[in-house]
């Protein structure tokens, strides 16, 4: 079997606020091959952004610390590399875009300059060449009249246009990896679809591997080759998109599936999982989903390992694949 080493190999990543009992991100592992798109999906607060920021070396200045783990990317461990090495990587071989296009661009600088400086930070090229590259990138993210937009300020652009600018900026140096943290959450539905389209096309054109963070299974279905489902700081299920959608084995994944808006066109969540995410100061020691899980038993007081269930599919649940449970055996979950 020819299995070249993956582009990104994250193992056992744990993130904690110094001095707290339980880590906010606990033992997260996944791999990503060149050109692949991985979606990390989960409810608000489950640690998706922290995972992404840790990989980019952007946790500095917060009380959060990477406690354990490694993340090999092109021969460099992103979690232990020196700040200067990470700075050299950021925006060059690994880029990131954020959830809030309205506030993620500098209001005082022209967008052409904001893209050009990303190029000049990593390439020794003259100003006008960087500017030309910025114009080219604006064109590639399908911004109309790209040449004229170079000298505009962010406030002159709509949210969707700004997110395109962010994408242009992130891809300006042809990165091997793009991390997109909920890139469409803040946008209108129609604009969301356009941006996702754009990202998929650009991903296919450039071969850039993508980690797409979202809490929207619709986005996952549209974008992902692979999925990692996170709950309260842990990956509870991972696999190819087909595996996770066609054969979900973790109760939380099942819950997410049934809370997906139906194709009949209803907006918003039809069914939500009863209960709420445990707070970071009150993490259960065993399975973190237990309080909301209809299948929980005494065994679940020990933390379930993320165990393989067929090639590429892994689930962290003592009772997966849940086939032994008849409907009558499920317990009532207090709401």
């Amino acid at each position, binding site marked *: 079997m020819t299995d070249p080493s993956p582009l990104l190999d994250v193992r056992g990543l744990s993130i904690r606020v110094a001095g707290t009992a339980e880590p906010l991100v606990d033992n997260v592992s996944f791999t990503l091959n060149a050109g692949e798109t991985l979606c990390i999906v989960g409810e608000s607060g489950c640690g998706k952004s922290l995972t992404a920021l840790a990989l980019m070396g952007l946790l500095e200045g917060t009380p959060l610390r990477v406690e354990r783990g490694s993340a090999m990317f092109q021969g460099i461990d992103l979690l232990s590399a020196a700040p200067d090495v990470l700075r050299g990587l950021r925006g060059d071989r690994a880029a990131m875009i954020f959830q809030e296009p309205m506030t993620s661009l500098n209001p005082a600088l022209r967008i052409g300059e904001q893209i050009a400086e990303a190029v000049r930070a990593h390439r020794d090229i003259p100003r006008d060449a960087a500017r030309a590259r910025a114009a080219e990138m604006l064109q590639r993210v399908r911004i109309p009249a790209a040449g004229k937009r170079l000298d505009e300020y962010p*406030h002159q652009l709509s949210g969707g246009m700004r997110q395109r600018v962010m994408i242009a900026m992130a891809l300006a140096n042809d990165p091997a990896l793009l991390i997109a943290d909920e890139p469409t959450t803040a946008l209108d539905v129609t604009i969301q679809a356009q941006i996702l389209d754009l990202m998929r096309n650009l991903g296919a054109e450039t071969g850039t591997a993508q980690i797409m963070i979202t809490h929207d299974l619709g986005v996952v279905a549209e974008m992902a080759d692979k999925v990692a489902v996170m709950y309260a700081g842990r990956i509870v299920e991972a696999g190819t998109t087909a595996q996770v959608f066609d054969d979900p084995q973790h109760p939380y994944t099942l819950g997410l599936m049934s809370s997906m808006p139906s194709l009949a066109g209803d907006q918003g969540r039809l069914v939500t999982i009863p209960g709420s995410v445990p707070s970071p100061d009150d993490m259960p020691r065993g399975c973190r989903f237990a309080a909301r899980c209809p299948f929980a038993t005494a065994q679940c007081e020990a933390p379930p390992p993320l165990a393989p269930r067929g090639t590429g599919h892994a689930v962290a649940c003592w009772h997966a694949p849940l086939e032994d449970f008849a409907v009558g055996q499920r317990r009532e979950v207090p709401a």
Partner: protein
Amino acid sequence: MLAFLGRRILIAIPTVFLISVFVFTLQHLLPGDPILVMAGEERDPEIIAALREKYRMNDPITVQYLAWAGNALQGDLGISLRTQQPVLELIAEKLPVTIQLAVMALIIAILIGIPAGVLSAYKKGTWIDWLANIIALSGLSVPNFWLGIMLILLVSVRLGWLPASGYLPLSEDPLQSIRVMVMPAFVLGTALAATLMRHTRSAMLSVLKSDYVRTARAKGLREGVVLVKHALRNALVPVVTVITLLFGELLAGAVLTEQIFTIPGFGKLVVDAVFNRDYAVVQGIVLCTGIAFIAMNILADAAYRVLNPRMSDQ
């Protein structure tokens, strides 16, 4: 930008008018009679009557105002009751001294206050931050006159590095002129530096948390570029406003500082004029100061627009 400046200047005209009316009226409501001061010890009624006639003190106050304002528009602010010099000439002679002092103080304040604010925000919670805050607090609590006297004692008397007082016009010998003014400017600048530092620090702290600073880091920019080009540039917007508000403090401080270092500037002119009830001079000074305030505000708004492109197309 030109249209903006034109509009602001037009709007300023009624303000200047109000200032002039206010100044003129208030002056005449104050107790004390300058004619008596001028007439000297004897208070000869004939001399007093002649002086009243000469300075049109017998006309109704509105007539006096109109005459004064009409002349002022032509650049004639009257004659000093005391020195018999034209007021405008007096002001034109003293104002550059004070402007030089104020500008040098402001430059010193900016050179100290803004980098210190940036550094202490960047190093928040470390000993650098603590040290900067302690120095700023001392800068605010040490009175100017005390600092001035101490500096004179140390730098001039003990070390003999700089003269303790005096003034040399910039046009005569620029370097020497700046040298003579450095110590007073430093005294005046330190308190302002402390205020600027604290405002810069808090503006930087909020800007450093912003999404676009995170974007700048995500691009792999060097920390220096992140700090200055991305963070400071935005943090300066509120700081510029603070600088405008400090202008009054700066002028008041300049008057005091000129006394400590016996600098023959605007401050001395003000003090002399007030004590001698030299109406014409006081009126001229307050009017000029008022206009200078308005001009500063317009300048600050212009700077604000340059720093903040969102304002430009409104």
